[in-house]
């Protein structure tokens, strides 16, 4: 493949991504202030339906590994390492939920078992395939946050 062809492919891909991609905040540039991240880290609102999938997907959020969630009762196994997320949006506002998903250590403290899903502050010896990457992309973070906002009891 020639360099110019690669270049035009890259431009085309970026164009497909649209403006949202251009405004994405990198993991090490996200600022968590008073346990909140106020604005979307992609510049646009997430999609709750996609967020529901990412929440359950073992290769993405795999949130069910640790949390029960009645809204996903069609999924066979729900973990019990963390609290049930039923009514999560009654307990937390959107900016707080975004902070929890991005880097829970900055909300619950360093000792929490919950991984940071958009953080590079991770454990030692990260496997080659995952080095320098985050568990969720910025878009997936926003999708999951949009989905969490639907978990209301009252």
């Amino acid at each position, binding site marked *: 493949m020639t360099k110019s062809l690669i270049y035009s492919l890259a431009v085309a891909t970026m164009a497909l991504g649209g403006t949202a991609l251009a405004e994405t905040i990198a993991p090490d540039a996200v600022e968590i202030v008073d346990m909140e991240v106020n604005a979307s880290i992609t510049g646009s609102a997430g999609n709750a339906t*996609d967020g529901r*999938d990412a929440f*359950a*997907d*073992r290769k993405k959020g*795999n949130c*069910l*590994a*640790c949390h029960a969630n009645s809204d996903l*009762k*069609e*999924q*066979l*196994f*729900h*973990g*019990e*390492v963390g609290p049930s997320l039923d009514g999560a949006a009654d307990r937390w506002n959107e900016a707080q939920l975004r902070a929890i998903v991005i880097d829970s250590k900055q909300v619950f403290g360093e000792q929490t*078992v919950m*991984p*940071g899903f958009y953080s590079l*502050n*991770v*454990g*030692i*010896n*990260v*496997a*080659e*395939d*995952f080095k320098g*990457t985050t*568990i969720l992309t910025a878009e997936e973070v926003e999708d999951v946050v949009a989905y969490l906002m639907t978990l209301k009891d009252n």
Partner: protein
Amino acid sequence: MIKMRTLTAVMSGLLAATAATAVLAGGPVDEALIIDGETEITTRTAAPEGHPFDELISGWHYRTDETRALQADSFQNPGMLYVERGEEIWNTADGAAGKSCADCHGDASESMKGVGAAYPKWDAASNRPVNIELQIDACRKNNMQAEPYKFDAADQKALTTYIRHQSQGMPVGIDLSQGEMQSWWDNGKDLYYTRTGQLNLSCANCHEENNGNYIRADHLSQGNVNGFPTYRLKQSEMVSLHNRFRGCIRDTRAEFPAAFSDELMALEVYVTWRGTGLAVETPAVRQ
């Protein structure tokens, strides 16, 4: 990306049609392990001094009714096939010296009784702790002029299972006063509490803080080693201890150390100590 999402949606749709949420209630079962109605196995015991737990509990208590029943019946326990294979190897000559293990050690039920319960042990010759696998390799090299086994070779697992089985029912207890065992214990402890990988989890996050809880479909135990090598139903085969360690480390999305490396030997020393007083179960059955 779009393709992936559609696929996931289709898959969860399929699941929705066929399955209802399983009701999971965590915690160890309150039962006794008696093998063939004869050999009572100590699966719960008071922890040694300086241990984070009050009570040590074998992984057996965290498994399903079916899995526990398999282990309690040595005719049904699939791990017993490996014990039998191990006995064959024990009695078969190998290597340029033309010797078998039995030629020097005789009847394993006598010479190896209690041996597996006391490993890892300090080894002055190599100036580090050795486990059963490394001791077998040392005998093959020095006493039989045979090649050491490749890690997880079928015969290595069978022979290790056979030797550990001779200590079934005997309490795990290692001697930390020999050589530099204590500093290997210290290193193992550091590793046990070190978070690894992109998921940023330590052994303690799962096996100390969350034993008794489900992590998705898996019921977390204290992560004791008294049943190793264990027969895993999921893999339909015997799993060595270092293979299990590596699996747990890999699941944190971390690179895992080589089998028998300093890291994994230190972990083996420390984690074996954490199970002090539990009886050797080999071959245990796990899911």
